[in-house]
Structures are given as C-alpha cells and as structure tokens.
C-alpha cells in the first residue's frame, strides 16, 4: 500500500486513478484526496529548493525551475530523512548544462558551509608560538565549513550575467555567516594542498612565489579559514 501511494504521490503527472484501497466520497473523490498529497509532496520540496538555490531560480525563472525540479525528482527522489539534503544531487543532475551545473554547485557549497561542524579557529598568536624550525613540517587545517570550488563560469557574479571564465572560489563560514571569495589558481592549489594534509613546505612548493603564501596565511587566519 505504501509503495503504491509513493508511486502515485511522486509521479510527475497528476493522479488520475486512485488505488482501490483509498476511500472517497462524492464531495471529495479518492483521486482528489491522493492528489492533495501529491501536490504537497512536490510543492514542499520545490519551496525548499527555491530557498536553497535562489540564483538558479533567478537565472532560470520560476517556470523553468519548476520544470527542472519535476525532472530532478524523477532521477533523485529524496532519500534522506531531512529536507536539508533534498538538493544535494542537483549540480550532478545539471552536469552538461554549463553554467547551471556550476551555479548549483556554488549554491550547494554555501549550504554545506552554513551548518558544517564548528571548530576553534587558529589565531595569529597561535601561529607565533610555533618555533621557526617546525614550520616546514607544520600541517595546517582548514575550517570544516571551507569548500574549494574550481568552476568554468563566474558563478559568484550572476549580475549582470554569468560568463565563461575559469573561476576558483573558497566558501567558508566565519562568526556564523557564510562568505565566498574568488581566488587565484595558485591560492586554490595551496588550499587544496592543505586540505589534502600536506605539510607547510609542500604547500609552499605548490606556488611559484613562496612568499605569497605568507601573505595568504595572514588573510586566511584573519578570515577564520584555519583551525587549531
């Protein structure tokens, strides 16, 4: 019974035949009763995804976004108990659709950053306590909220419009707020190295000008990007 109702409620088209086990009356026939649930299923998820992907809605317009979600849910019906995860495959679903996939990836990264684990941030004072001899072997750690994206469109600048452009972004949370910044390919490589557990000497080896890393390091600490 539950499997039958699931099929009907999540079908992309309206329910036209109610299952025999659903009670109805002339005032509200069984088919209309099942349709109430079908509508609630779709629109609850649509509303949630509109909140999660506001820029995608802006680019596509309400009608096209609605149609996109109809198709998306056929391929990726919700499997997690929380609505928070309902959009987790949208970027994957949009693969091959250029800027839309990149934009979805960017917006999803912000959701991941929003409620990622908390951690004690590294301060300038913490860093000063580390003896100079230990620096080459020192392993820095990114804040759990930090997301690194390499996309092919300038998705962080949707106004006036998105254009093809190799773009490197870091997205992170500081003091409960989510931020993003476009960064250079070198800074991206350095942060990727930190993320993969490289020691400081190897992080510096990722870039042409190792002194540049010291400037970034100061900025990363001020922006709460590194943790103790």
């Amino acid at each position, binding site marked *: 019974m539950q499997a039958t109702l699931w099929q009907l409620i999540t079908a992309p088209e309206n329910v036209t035949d109610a299952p025999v086990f659903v009670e109805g009356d002339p005032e509200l026939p069984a088919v*209309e009763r099942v349709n109430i649930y079908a509508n609630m299923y779709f629109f609850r998820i649509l509303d949630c995804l509109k909140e999660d992907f506001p820029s995608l809605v802006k680019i596509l317009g309400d009608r096209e976004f609605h149609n996109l979600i109809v198709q998306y849910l056929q391929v990726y019906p919700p499997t997690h108990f929380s609505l928070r995860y309902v959009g987790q495959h949208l970027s994957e679903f949009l693969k091959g659709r250029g800027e839309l996939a990149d934009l979805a990836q960017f917006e999803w990264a912000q959701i991941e950053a929003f409620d990622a684990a908390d951690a004690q941030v590294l301060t300038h004072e913490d860093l000063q306590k580390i003896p100079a001899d230990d620096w080459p072997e020192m392993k820095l750690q990114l804040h759990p909220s930090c997301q690194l994206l390499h996309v092919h469109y300038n998705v962080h600048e949707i106004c006036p419009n998105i254009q093809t452009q190799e773009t490197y972004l870091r997205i992170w949370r500081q003091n409960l707020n989510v931020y993003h910044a476009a960064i250079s390919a070198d800074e991206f490589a350095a942060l990727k190295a930190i993320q993969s557990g490289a020691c400081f000497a190897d992080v510096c080896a990722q870039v042409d000008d190792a002194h540049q890393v010291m400037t970034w390091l100061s900025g990363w600490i001020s922006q709460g990007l590194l943790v103790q």
Partner: protein
Amino acid sequence: MGLRPCHYPHIVENWPDQVDWFEIISENYMVDGGKPLHFLDRIRSRYPMVMHGVSMSIGSTDPLDMGYLARLKQLAEHVQPAWVSDHLCWSSTGKHSVHDLLPLPYTRETISHVVDRVKRVQEFLGRRILLENVSSYMAFKHSEMPEWEFLTEIAERADCMILLDVNNIYVSSFNHKFDPMTYINWVPKNRVGQFHLAGHSDHGTYLLDTHDHHVKDKVWELYVEALKRFGPISTLIEWDDHIPEFEDLMKEVARAKTQYQHYVDQTQSNADRDAGHTVAAHHST
C-alpha cells in the same frame, strides 16, 4: 511556542519572559554546527525545551532508520528536553522520504506493527515518546476502527504518550465527516502529554493543515473542550509558514495561555476544595 530561525534575533536580544518553553523541530538541529546549534544552545540555556520530530516514520513498512534514531538520541542527550515527540504516520517507504505525514490504515495488523516499533524506539532512546495525531485527507477502505480507537490502543499497548493536536482533530473531522468531540471524549485522560494548536486553510471541500494562519475559532472552541476533559496540558501554537513577528505570535500564545490558566486555576481550586474536605473530615472524626 515553536522555535523558528526568523525569531532568533528577537529572542536573544530580549529574552522574553512570556515564553515558558520552546518546542524545536528535531531534524532542524541534527546538523554538525553553525547557526542552528549556536542559537539552540544559547536559547536552551535560558528556557526549557521539548523536541518534536517529523521523520521517525513510525508506521512505515521499512525497517526503523537506526541512523536517524541515533542522531535523535544524540540530540536529546545534548538538549535534555522535557520530552520527545513525533507523529503517528508514515513518511518514508522503499528507502525514500515523502517529507510528509501520511495516514495509516486503522487495522489490528497496523497496531501490532506500530506498537512493536514504538517499544523499540522507546527502549533505544531510553525514554517514553509522545505520538501526535496527524491531519489527514485520505482514509482507507480496509480500516477496522476509527482513528481515535487506533491511536488510543497504540498508546496503551506501547505505553507511550499522546500529543493531541486539536487543530488536526478538527481538520480531519471535517475531511472525514466525524464529530471531533467523539475523538476528544475517547482518548484516555492520562495519556495526553501535550496539545498542539495551529491554523488551517479552507479549500471548500476539504481543510488543509497549513500552519500559516491564526488558530480558527472552531479550533479554539475545541481547545476549551480539550482543556475541560484533560485539564491544563502544556500547549503549543504551531506556525510554520508566513510566520508573523515574534510579538504578534505572542498574542496568539497569550490567548491560549488565558484559556489554559483558567483550567489551572480551576484545577487548583478543586484541589484546595478537596484538601479542605479532607481536613474537615479529619476534624470531624
């Protein structure tokens, strides 16, 4: 009142003393960190809380989601709520979530299935849970009893409590054409641990439980009847869409409080009277 993110700034700036306790939607705080847990902890440090879940899917034919229950238990250990509640419904099947609260067929077979699952959940969580009656738009031909008998038998056999949603009784009574008072009068007095009140929308041929309006007059009337039968039970106003400003929502809460307080006073005066009788009887012997 229900704790909603749009009210966080007002709460932490004013620490309103008219709020007795907050109810949280459990799933909204089953996250690793950030704003939700930050505000949860700050607000919990000042107010009692209860946890209300929407994803237990106690009536599903899928196995119990132990990953979900582990997360729920972890949150309950963190929040230390006065109680934990969810709904008498199914919300997932075939490992898919419907993100909705669907009704069950009211049969002996379903009762056995749900009772077994409630017992296992209570054992796992180490506490009794409350199950809420849902609003429904659909009923099943193979149901063998009315909803109130179904709910009552599950609560009695599983030894769980009931979160009686007065608005849901009203909505379902319209949609399925029964007398809401029959429902209220059937549910055992000692099983009800909380009331919910909410607004609904009138769609002509059916009422929809939308939680986006003031509580309707008919529901207020039914609330008074529920207070008469069950006494002063902790009451929550649910408002989840088009949420008003905090102060406006407090007006709705104040209205419920006035009704509630009337029955607190009455219960107290009955207790005093009974105590007086006891004393009088003692002196006369």
